[in-house]
């Protein structure tokens, strides 16, 4: 009986055990956790930062090649199936799951930080640095992250909806592993997916909590001590756990749509109240520079000058997106049943990317306008505390208090929807891919994500979050490369017209 339970729940027991060990170790010996994770992180970056760059570029090329090939007409589901959700609801949900908090956190601060701290071959705070900052903000938040999500979600959607297998990462490995997906090898793949998801989500929630805290401190002058951040995480945890346990899938969908509308309103307000022509010029010129340089950007690690910069930014982002990809991939797969591969890939790669570009042009471009044209001291604030940059930026607009409050509400809702989805996905991943999962698993995963975020914040703050995202993503990147192979094998067995 016990042996049967252990065999059935091996993924859950192993991954939960390891995560709980990590939390316990971090709580008991925070002095050791930081150096240990930093050593692993440095080893990965020293030896494999090039692999992150080339792999992510490959994922983009691979996704496009499949979409534009004859396999593009294959449906993610049975041939007669129709899409489960309408186009707007679908795009809203995949956008909310894929980016959310990060856009609010980095929308203003990333261009400002790049402006002030560019690679050594560019003069800080110069017009070149501004163009560079915007181009890299587009690059880090553009088509590449969505290519990463596409690989995972397309694989899961194909193997579960078209091939009738459980919605697990290990299912995608059937063409290579065969029946061994039910054994140790398959379980290891799922454990790696759980690991990446927990640390990727915890990183985002850590960012979110830091920024909510900064906003509240900025608006209401509450204490900036770390226990308050922990308190925010605990309150948000209670909210998203309640949502996950009550199973308010419909509610999350409504919240996701509401958040997109709210984000769009905030975007239009900033555009309308600021310098719209300047922002639109930033948008088109950055878009041109991005398209013109996309291959160079994709593969550029600046080995002769600026290698550290590339590691700290591009590789961190790629690792972060990869660590999010099992969770986002499963989520996107689940809402994309009935769409063709071409429709799926092209929409996922372009629609959210375009919205993100507009977002960065409006927030980043406006911040650069304030910094470069009006002498606002925003870059220094962002350099000091990136979580504060958004609120310092909103200070320069009419109704700053209201806008900041809207931003905080957005952050909280993004926090809840992301964490809720992550909890459900983690529970499903550790329950054989089933949609009905026991509540105790949701509770354990919800608390685990929050506890990991707290441990990382306490042991090293922002840099600690980044370090763990990169470390946890590395093995999953290798899994993703294998996913491309298995997907190609699966598709090659399809009978499609030339």
């Amino acid at each position, binding site marked *: 009986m016990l042996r049967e339970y252990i065999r059935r729940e091996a993924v859950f027991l192993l991954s939960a055990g390891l995560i709980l060990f990590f939390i316990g170790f971090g709580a008991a010996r925070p002095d050791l956790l930081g150096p240990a994770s930093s050593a692993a992180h440095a080893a990965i970056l020293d030896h494999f930062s090039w692999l992150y760059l080339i792999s992510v570029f490959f994922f983009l090329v691979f996704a496009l090649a499949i979409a534009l090939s004859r396999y593009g007409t294959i449906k993610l589901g049975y041939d007669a199936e129709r899409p489960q959700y309408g186009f707007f609801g679908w795009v809203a949900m995949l956008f909310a799951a894929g980016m959310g908090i990060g856009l609010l956190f980095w929308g203003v601060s990333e261009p400002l930080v790049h402006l002030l701290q560019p690679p050594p071959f560019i003069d800080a705070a110069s017009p070149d640095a501004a163009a560079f900052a915007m181009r890299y903000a587009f690059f880090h938040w553009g088509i590449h992250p969505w290519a990463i999500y596409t690989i995972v979600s397309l694989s899961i959607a194909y193997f579960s909806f078209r091939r009738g297998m459980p919605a697990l990462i290990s299912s995608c490995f*059937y*063409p290579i592993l*065969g029946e061994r997906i039910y054994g140790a090898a398959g379980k290891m793949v799922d454990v790696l997916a759980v690991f990446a998801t927990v640390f990727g989500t915890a990183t985002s929630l850590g960012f979110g909590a830091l920024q909510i805290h900064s906003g509240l401190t900025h608006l209401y002058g509450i204490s900036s001590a770390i226990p308050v951040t922990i308190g925010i995480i605990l309150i948000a945890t209670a909210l998203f756990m309640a949502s996950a346990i009550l199973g308010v899938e419909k509610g999350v969908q409504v919240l996701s749509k509401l958040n997109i509308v709210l984000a769009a309103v905030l975007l239009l307000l900033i555009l309308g109240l600021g310098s719209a022509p300047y922002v639109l010029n930033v948008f088109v010129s950055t878009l041109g520079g991005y398209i013109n340089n996309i291959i160079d950007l994709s593969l550029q690690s600046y080995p002769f000058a600026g290698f550290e910069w590339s590691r700290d930014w591009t590789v961190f982002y790629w690792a972060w997106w990869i660590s999010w990809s099992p969770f986002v991939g499963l989520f996107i797969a689940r809402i994309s049943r009935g769409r063709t591969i071409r429709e799926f890939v092209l929409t996922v790669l372009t629609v959210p990317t375009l919205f993100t570009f507009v977002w960065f042009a409006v927030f980043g471009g406006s911040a650069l306008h304030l910094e470069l044209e009006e002498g606002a001291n925003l870059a220094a604030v962002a350099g000091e505390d990136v979580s504060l940059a958004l609120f310092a930026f909103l200070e320069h607009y009419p109704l700053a208090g209201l806008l900041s409050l809207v931003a905080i509400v957005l952050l909280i809702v993004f926090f809840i929807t992301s964490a809720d989805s992550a909890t459900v996905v983690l529970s499903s991943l550790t329950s054989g891919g089933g949609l009905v999962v026991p509540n105790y698993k949701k509770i354990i995963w919800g608390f685990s994500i929050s506890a990991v975020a707290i441990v990382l914040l306490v042991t090293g703050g922002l840099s600690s979050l980044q370090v763990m995202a990169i470390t946890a993503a590395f093995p999953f990147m290798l899994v993703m490369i294998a996913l491309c192979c298995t997907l190609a*094998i*699966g598709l090659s*067995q399809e009978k499609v017209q030339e």
Partner: protein
Amino acid sequence: MLEKTLIPVAYKERPEELRKVGRMLKTLGANSVCLYHVNEPGSFFRGADLSWLTLLSEALEEAGLIVEVKTGEGHIASAIAEAALLEGADGIYMKAKRRWHIETMLLGSVSRDLLRLADVPVLVHKVRPRLPDDGTEPDQSDLNILYATDLDEASARPLPYVMEFAGAWCHVLHVRGRMADPLAERTRREAVERELHTVAEELRPYFGRVTVEERIGDPAAQVLHVSDRIEADVVVLGRKSPAFLSAPMGETAERIVTGSSASIFLVPQPGRRNAS
């Protein structure tokens, strides 16, 4: 099967070795042989005395074969492949067995080209079957044949040749990639089992024992593994055009020929004309 066989020969070929080959070909049903030598343009030996060919011809005649001698010029592999067509040969015999084992295992560039270009079946003689040194004829009824097939058109073509090899044991091996999901995999496995059973039934009258095996994985690696395991004398397989992605690694057939200790009987894809 090999009633008329073309044997490409080079300078310094040893008559005593060729005599053994002649006896083996006779066992396999050959009654005439075309000894073919290609002069490379610009070769040092071009136009030199070709009396050594007469010695080789006499060695084969001693084995009871009708022998004719022909020479040609040009790119060696292309010339051999073309001559096989023009002379109406049923197959080409290619001796990979050399004095040293390492030489036998390393396939020369001419042989590799010929495997790709030939429009008639090619028998590449490697370490097995061993040719008797005592002047007796090899016993066909002792042969272990490995018939490697993926059950498509190209690999069904060798079936009549397998029947003609006859012998003690025929092991039919099917190698394929795994299907993408368990249901498709089970369906495919059942279909393959049925087809293999049919093939085995067709071969049963010609062999003392017929067995079938289905494996999943890389075809070349699996064929080599099974060939060594059962100590096959001859591996019979069909040749297919390589897929674009596998081209840099070489055809499956070429990899099998290079790595195998057993002789290889390679049957080209029907309807393809490479030499002309």
